[in-house]
């Protein structure tokens, strides 16, 4: 199952990004509070819970099942994430999942100036209080990671990506991480634009053998929108001779599975499409429950023009379909 680990500085918006990311990708959000309140009481008494809240060193103490608290948390996180796609905040998860091919490891940072501003605003602190708070929390994070794993918390090489929220919004960070996670070959999310298609599959338009380049172009447009399709999946007889032999059949180019719609592409001039129109008319008469649309040359070219751009363009009105 996919795992995204989020390491963050206080005031970096990392918690907010993690929460939105989990929602965006329908993944379970795991934060320290959940671990302490839901998992640790299984093995820790009140005194141990208190110590776990206070001292990183105490995580190296043996608990009742013979392992250390640190190992217990690691095992629980691994076990849980094997069954449930998870976004894990903190907890040294970037180390625990360092070698996991399904894991995306992210660190969220911001400049001190921006962090102080956010901390002041969040806690209504003055300058001095905010600076002290930021330094204290940084020290705690750093100490936790170095005590448990002997590594430097801020080491960027431990992460797949480091995002600076000085200039990136929460939504932008969520999209960047989601994009990376979705395109990582081994991940198979259920909440992506082609959520029923494993991410390591080639786009269908690169697999099918099309009879005409226009069909491939159209398939590319469908892929772009993550619309599931099949190429010429069904033939409809539309005319028979007296013996009942089929004399005319129609094989629409595409079937949009989720929208139960057949599509026929034609790039012929309008005056030459009479035969095709006749077939579609017959099909509609004989199979009234079948939804079928013809895309004519003019419409097809306007579609191509519309989608012949790229580069983070917002889809709106005249380039919207």
């Amino acid at each position, binding site marked *: 199952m996919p795992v995204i680990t989020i390491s963050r500085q206080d005031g970096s918006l990392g918690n907010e990004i993690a929460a939105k990311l989990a929602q*965006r990708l329908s993944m379970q959000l795991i934060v320290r509070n959940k671990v302490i309140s839901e998992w640790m009481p299984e093995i820790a008494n009140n005194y141990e819970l208190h110590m776990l809240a206070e001292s990183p060193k105490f995580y190296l103490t043996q608990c009742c099942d013979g392992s250390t608290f640190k190992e217990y948390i690691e095992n629980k996180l691994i076990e849980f994430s094997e069954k449930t796609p998870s976004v894990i905040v903190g907890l040294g998860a970037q180390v625990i999942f360092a070698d996991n091919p399904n894991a995306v490891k992210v660190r969220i940072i911001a400049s001190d100036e921006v962090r102080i501003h956010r901390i002041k605003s969040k806690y209504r602190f003055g300058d001095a209080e905010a600076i002290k708070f930021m330094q204290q929390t940084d020290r705690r994070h750093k100490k936790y990671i170095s005590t448990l794993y002997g590594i430097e918390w801020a080491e960027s090489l431990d992460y797949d990506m480091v995002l600076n929220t000085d200039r990136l919004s929460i939504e932008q960070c969520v999209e960047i991480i989601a*994009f990376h996670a979705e395109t990582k070959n081994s991940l198979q999310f259920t909440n992506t634009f082609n959520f029923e298609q494993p991410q390591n599959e080639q786009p269908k338009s690169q697999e099918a053998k099309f009879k005409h380049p226009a069909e491939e172009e159209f398939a590319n447009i469908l892929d772009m929108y993550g619309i599931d399709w099949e190429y010429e999946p069904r033939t409809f007889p539309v005319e028979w001779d007296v013996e009942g032999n089929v004399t005319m059949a129609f094989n629409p180019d595409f079937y*949009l599975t989720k929208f139960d719609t057949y599509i026929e592409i034609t790039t012929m001039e309008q005056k030459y499409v009479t035969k095709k129109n006749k077939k579609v008319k017959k099909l509609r008469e004989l199979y009234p429950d079948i939804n079928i649309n013809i895309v004519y040359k003019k419409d097809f070219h306007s579609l191509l023009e519309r989608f*012949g751009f790229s580069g983070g363009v917002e*889809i709106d009105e005249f380039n*919207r*379909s």
Partner: protein
Amino acid sequence: MNLTGVKEILFSEEVLKKRVAELGKQISEDYKDKNPVLVSVLKGTMYFVADLTRQIDIPLQIDFMSIGVYPGVAKNTGIVRINKDLDINIEGRHVLMIEDIINTGLTMGYLVQNMEARKPASIKVCTLLDNSQKRLMNIPLEYIGFEVPDILLVGYGIDRNQDFRHLPYIARYEGE
């Protein structure tokens, strides 16, 4: 005001107001006790959703989405992705998608697929304008303000290169 290219008015302020009120009344009846989430697709829906929601007299929540096209890895057509996602968790909720205009249905198809993956209790679509001549796929539209011909339109949120959104009416546009 420079209105170059803006031709005859198709739907005046009064006509829009009347139809939006009718839609609001219908939605209020259909979604009574359902506390729906109205999902508005930016930016063309801004006036429509503002006017429509004020004509709905049941509890509801409003959220916004924006989608864009990004370069594709393997192809030059790009891929569609979310620029601005929902803030509200729609799992188990009744969702009403609000659109200004539906043409081919590709955008709405993408959005409906995306919304379905979040397991809402229901998804329905309300569009102010429906250009069914352009439709490629079978997308059930629960609420339609007006059927429109296959022409360029501006006003009441609909733009031409970001211009003319603020016109209080919807007019035909004829330009380059």
